[in-house]
């Protein structure tokens, strides 16, 4: 389960600074765990590439509403 910790908020702020937009937290599967999410966000920042949703295999139909 995702928990909003101080560490998460800090890394989410860095993500926004790097990419210009916020972490799409509403699209991350809720069964994910926070430590792994933090690692994934950090790696996106380090790699200068936002592939966060791909890391979670997020896919949805054209008419789906999340």
């Amino acid at each position, binding site marked *: 389960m995702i928990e909003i910790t101080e560490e998460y908020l800090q890394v989410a702020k860095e993500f926004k600074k790097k990419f210009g937009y*916020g972490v799409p937290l509403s699209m991350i599967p809720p069964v994910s765990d926070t430590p792994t999410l933090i690692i994934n966000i950090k790696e996106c920042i380090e790699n200068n590439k936002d592939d966060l949703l791909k890391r979670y*295999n997020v896919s949805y139909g054209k008419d789906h509403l999340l």
Partner: protein
Amino acid sequence: MKMSISNESVAVLREFADKIPAVVENIIEDTKRLIEVYNNVEDEVGPHREDFLQLFHSINRSQKASGDAIKELSYILRCTADKMESYINYGTAGSSILQGNNTDYVRRYHTGTEGRLKTEGSNVLVKELYNEYSDEIRIIDFDHTGVAYYSPSSKGIKLNAMADMHNPTGNFSTYFHEAGHMVDDYAGNGHTWLSSDPEYRKCLYQDMESYVQKTIVCKHCERPEAYDIISEEISGVWNPGVSDIFGSLTECRCQGTWGHDPSYWQEDTTRVEKEAFANMFEASIGSGEKLENMKKYFPRAYARFEYIIRSR
């Protein structure tokens, strides 16, 4: 027709599932008519009156039992069609509550959603709308491991009930958000959604812009800094909907803790008002904090949301 995992079979199953409610309705009507006919001739049946009464009791019981079973069949057919479609499109169907023996778990989930609905502070208008369509709300998967969604084509919701029971933004928030999408779809006139209202969309942008301008003036700053200030302000568990709406209107540049990806909004611009509707719907059910915040940041849009519901 031979069934196989194909789009054709998916369509056939859904068509069949759609027809079932009418079949049930016919059985109920026919039974009623039979009883009416009997009541009209009751005095003339003579010594066999008791036999006839037994027979009608038996028909009534069978009708009730078969009606419920057939309704279940419709649900199961839709679930099967959804799973087949999921296999075709994504190569996986995930696990389903139908495959397990988790009736207690589902019951607890439903009891929890009922509890939140009864919370003092919920918007009565929204509760009425929910109650009007609550029998139509169809959860395809209670243990979906991906992100929750509502599919307008299958008229079904996939979510993870366990995660939602411990949702950091309030228990059952995902349920009421997705139910909001479903009600938005169902309560439209069949061709459009309730939220497909140009004035509603206009109000959303006006409210966002007003708040940004107010922040610029009050904090003596430029727009990017105002975005940062507001993003900070709308972070936290009581603002997931407000945060998401701000994100949808600013290409996710002004967004708190919760929100979608910029591409999600770009792919279909009507998602802006559809998601806003679901966010307002969810904020309207439960303790008042979310609702107060929603009205604070989106006063005109929320008033329009209520107007849309009232005038449906």
